[in-house]
């Protein structure tokens, strides 16, 4: 149901505090959409390690690459997007080259506040508007954006609003307004906020939710609680574990696994599971949007089967 709601849009923007696993959640979401036969584009912004590596692919760059049939990925680097924009706008090759080679242009771009974000959002808008074939149809059914975690997750989304206020006329302002109306169009765009079951991540997710609604007029349609510790023991087993752990029992369970160590590990798990439950409830109480839990993966590295298992969880939610 949550997936239905998200996949009915053209654009899903994932936001949340750094380190909560947005790119994993985004890739899983893209895989879930792909499993339903959608053509997906997964966009990352200046990712040092693009998500394509999870699928065993080399890092994708600024050009869309179809890494699996129906699933394309792109890693937008702001300076490249700006260069491309200059090239397209200036048209005359020699002039464009001159501009791009100029140190003034480079430094201006590095120092002009908000311009990189605006360029990237503009590019996302262009990708959304891309049509192919005859009769014309969108090149991608769904675009999933892993919004840069500036810690303050809103900084990125706020840029178009700020820019349209600061520069009401001219191409910058006009683009900013177009981007803003796309972001605010609830039929086309959904914001999904990712968190992990920890105090600060949850606090920040809630702040993000409140500010996105109040300041930007963008409402979060779903929350994803990632890296959840899920129940591994029955209630009776948990009781037994806690009792036995306090009794200093000894013995061997399996090669290299003593009962004592396993009981300590189990207690640790139980604490984490309860914390997960606590934060999930807290999130659910605070927001109207649905909260989807994804399990913590105990794999050495995140690979395609692991992501598929998360995609299935999203499908079932």
């Amino acid at each position: 149901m949550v997936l239905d709601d998200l996949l009915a849009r053209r654009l899903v923007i994932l936001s949340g505090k750094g380190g909560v696993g947005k790119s994993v959640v985004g890739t899983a979401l893209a895989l879930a959409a792909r499993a339903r036969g959608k053509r997906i584009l997964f966009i990352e912004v200046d990712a040092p390690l693009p998500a394509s590596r999870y699928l065993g692919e080399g890092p994708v760059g600024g050009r869309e690459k179809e890494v699996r049939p129906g699933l394309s990925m792109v890693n937008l680097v702001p300076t490249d997007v700006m260069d491309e924009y200059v090239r397209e706008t200036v048209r005359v090759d020699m002039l464009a080259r001159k501009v791009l080679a100029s140190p003034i242009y480079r430094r201006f771009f590095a120092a002009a506040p908000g311009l990189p974000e605006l360029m990237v959002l503009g590019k996302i808008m262009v990708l959304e508007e891309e049509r192919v074939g005859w009769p014309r149809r969108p090149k991608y059914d769904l675009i999933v954006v892993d919004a840069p975690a500036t810690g303050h997750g809103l900084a990125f989304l706020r840029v178009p609003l700020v820019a349209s206020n600061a520069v009401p006329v001219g191409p910058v302002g006009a683009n900013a307004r177009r981007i803003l109306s796309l972001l605010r169009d609830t039929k086309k765009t959904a914001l999904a906020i990712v968190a992990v079951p920890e105090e600060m991540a949850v606090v920040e997710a809630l702040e993000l939710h409140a500010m996105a609604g109040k300041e930007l007029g963008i409402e979060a349609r779903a929350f994803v609680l990632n890296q959840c510790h899920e129940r591994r023991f029955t209630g009776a087993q948990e009781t037994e574990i806690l009792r036995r752990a306090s009794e200093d029992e000894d013995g061997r369970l399996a090669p290299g696994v003593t009962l004592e160590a396993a009981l300590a590990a189990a207690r640790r798990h139980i604490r984490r599971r309860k914390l997960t439950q606590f934060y999930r409830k807290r999130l659910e109480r605070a927001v109207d949007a649905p909260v989807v839990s994804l399990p913590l993966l105990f794999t050495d590295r995140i690979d395609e089967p692991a992501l598929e298992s998360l995609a299935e969880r999203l499908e079932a939610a």
Partner: protein
Amino acid sequence: MSAAALQSLSRALDERRVLVVCGAGGVGKTTTAAALGVQSALRGRRVLVCTIDPSRRLATSLGLDRLPDRPRELDLARVAGSGTRGTLWAMTLDTKRTFDALVEKHAATDAARRRILDNRFYRQVSSALAGSHEYMAMEKLLELSADERFDLVLLDTPPTRHALDFLEAPERLMGFLDTGILRWFLKPYFVAGRLTLKVATRTGAIALKIADSVLGLQFLQDLSEFFLAFEGMYAGFKERAGRVRALLRSDRAGFVLVASPAPHTLDEALYFHQRLDQSGMPFVAFVINRVHPDPAQGFPATRAAADVDDELAEALVEVFQDQRRLARADRRSVERLEGVTGESALLVPEFDADVHDLRELKDVGDVMLGEAGSGRRGRGRARGTRRLAAAEGRAR
């Protein structure tokens, strides 16, 4: 735990004037900065922990609702008893206010001051946009490093996507001020209200046309008005950017690089370390937070079979193995960092609860500095760790 890293961090807490805590988002930078602040204060220094965070992280970990934008003293006695000479202060940097204060202080005339503060562009960019946080952090750092109330300023860096952005902010600003870009903007044809396409040279005309089609004249005009309003302050900006640069390269400063065992945060720390090295900035230590402890460590092997029913035994072994897999992956990550840099890292185990108050912050610092016994190893788990685990009860 590494003696060298421990000693380096410990000495820095005793001797440095400024410690900058850097790292990728979500690795526990703020908590680390606050925990180190508590430790240094307990050693008798007067410490300010400053965070540049639009959200309320530091306040949360200090058990406060919010932090003021000027230093506020915390009640250290709660964790230190009455004998300590040290003091602990905390504040959050309010980017807009810092910017405003800067303008108030340095604008050449009242008219110039008003022109800036009323400028539409300024009002938008001074608070809202990425980049201004870093600039203001630098300005604030300079101011605080001269504040005689404090022996040590611990700066928690802004939550940038690339930790390096912070380091590069003054260089970027200086690069910007150095190039012809300002002169270009400040040319008469861009003066507010007199915008004209009549320019002296052909190249100038072409440049203007391109700028118009790419960004729009209005944008450029607003920007040039903005820059014009700052005229007279540039020399000061540049001078202070240069001083921050010098400060951060001196032995009064130091960088604590924070990461988690997640590969991308370690990569960031690695890259940062390399950059510090290249630019002659003093590295202090790596702190790796949230390291999964090895569930086997500290428990001696035994031969006797355990008396547990099969179902439970199976579930127990599975959970144990899962945790062990995480611990091993973490260890490999840390070994890679240590291998590449030749530095050893201070490891802080993942706690079973969040940090909510000064007492727990002290515990975190104790574990970090190995003062509660060996934090990451096994059974004699630190008192601090246990107390943190107990805090979970309160969370519920």
